[in-house]
């Protein structure tokens, strides 16, 4: 039987979006190494509730690593020290007895803190709404293989589509840039035939929205790639840049009355 852990948490507490926040120290005692990180916080919160204090607010939903809701920066790394692991899938066996753990929210102008460790990631949704979709009728499914797709492209698109939109790339980036997120959302469509009709308007529109949301810009540090719990590659950023350059060189400004065929 493994030994239970006693830890010290330094947690960012912030009452609401307008208040100033500060770090508060909490003991986390008698923690099983088999617990997930969120279960450990549940135990700490139960203690706080029992004492009549305000529990620590943090985002969480599926707790099986696929929804992208859990966030928080653990000892300076989004989703904690383990690669390709979301906070909910991180286990307390990754920590040593007596360790101090600093918990902070995602830090970005585009992600305002709502309370404690919970931030508003609506900016990412608005980037998707600006162009991260295909405008095709979704009638009945057509015959399998009616659209030939190279296996490699299908795999690369699937790899990009693994992005769960958690925002760890933004949190890890020294510039709070959303380029890894954006490039995954651009790539998953630009690699497939269904994404081609809107390929070059999509990338310009999504970059325009990203800039309007006041995310930073990529300086090729590579922190995002390491922090990403789904292993999204920086190759996607290069692909997105390629599409953006082509789109900027070739787009036709809309003309009033548009088109000639009508």
């Amino acid at each position, binding site marked *: 039987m493994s030994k239970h852990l006693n830890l010290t948490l330094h947690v960012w507490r912030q009452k609401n979006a307008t208040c100033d926040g500060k770090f508060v120290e909490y003991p986390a005692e008698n923690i099983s190494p088999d617990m997930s990180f969120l279960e450990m916080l549940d135990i700490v919160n139960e203690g706080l509730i029992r004492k009549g204090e305000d529990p620590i607010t943090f985002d969480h939903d599926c707790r099986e690593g696929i929804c992208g809701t859990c966030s928080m920066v653990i000892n300076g790394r989004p989703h904690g020290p383990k690669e390709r692991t979301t906070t909910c899938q991180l286990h307390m066996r990754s920590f040593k007895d007596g360790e101090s753990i600093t918990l902070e929210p995602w830090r970005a102008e585009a992600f305002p803190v709502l309370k404690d460790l919970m931030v508003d990631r609506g900016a990412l949704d608005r980037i998707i709404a600006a162009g991260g979709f295909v405008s095709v009728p979704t009638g009945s499914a057509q015959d399998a293989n009616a659209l030939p797709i190279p296996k490699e492209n299908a795999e690369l698109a699937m790899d990009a589509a693994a992005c769960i939109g958690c925002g760890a790339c933004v949190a890890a980036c020294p510039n709070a840039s959303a380029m890894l997120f954006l490039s995954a959302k651009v790539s998953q469509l630009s690699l497939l035939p269904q994404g081609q009709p809107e390929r070059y308007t999509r990338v310009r529109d999504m970059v325009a929205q990203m800039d309007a949301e006041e995310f*930073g810009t990529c300086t090729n540090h590579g*922190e995002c790639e390491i922090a990403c719990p789904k292993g999204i590659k920086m190759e996607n950023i290069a692909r997105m840049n390629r599409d953006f350059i082509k789109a900027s060189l070739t787009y036709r400004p809309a003309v009033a009355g548009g088109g000639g065929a009508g």
Partner: protein
Amino acid sequence: MSVAEQSIAGAEARGHGFMASSVGRKVVMAGTGIILFGFVTVHMIGNTQAYMGAETFNAYAKFLHSMLHGGGIWIFRAVLLAATGLHIWSAVTLTLDNRAARPVGYRAQQNVASTWASRTMRWSGVILAAFIVYHLMHLTIGNAHPNFDHANPYANFVNGFKVPAAAGFYIVAQLCLGLHMWHGVWSVTQTLGLSHPRYDSLRRNFATGLTVLVVGVNITYPLAVLTGFIR
């Protein structure tokens, strides 16, 4: 949060042109970066003639000033000035945007993938800008040189580097150039989308190789004068 952030609109509706966009300005930085590291490479190769004696070196300087009936050097200078200006403009505006994007930092930020070179690009860039001004005053205009002679670039080169403080600044600047180029050359390939798994190690190696070559050879010039190898 401003209203613009809450609303959803495309590039056309926002009037968000290439030069205003973050990726567009990064492309400007990459494009001008190619001109600048292309220049320092050619500059390094040309200066190897310092090892061939005063006659060869001065003839090379004369050639540079007389090519295209004396217009060639001004074309070079105009292109370099424009490239440097655009490079600095994109760097400053992008840096300000990046600072604004993270107004509150982390207490315990851990850097895992970034390098010292990538994190100090802004500092190495500022030192290089100061060095370029000094370098022009030192060996082109001559007003920061102890005994400048427009007719004898070789003597200017030797006498200039005999001052240990001047030679030291050149060496420090070259080390900054090394940091800046190593991350910059690789970044160019990423920003321009020149990425493919087959060539990923090649573009890292290209950045390392070019940096070591340019900085390595450039540093030998002040050292060769200080040690008396070039007299």
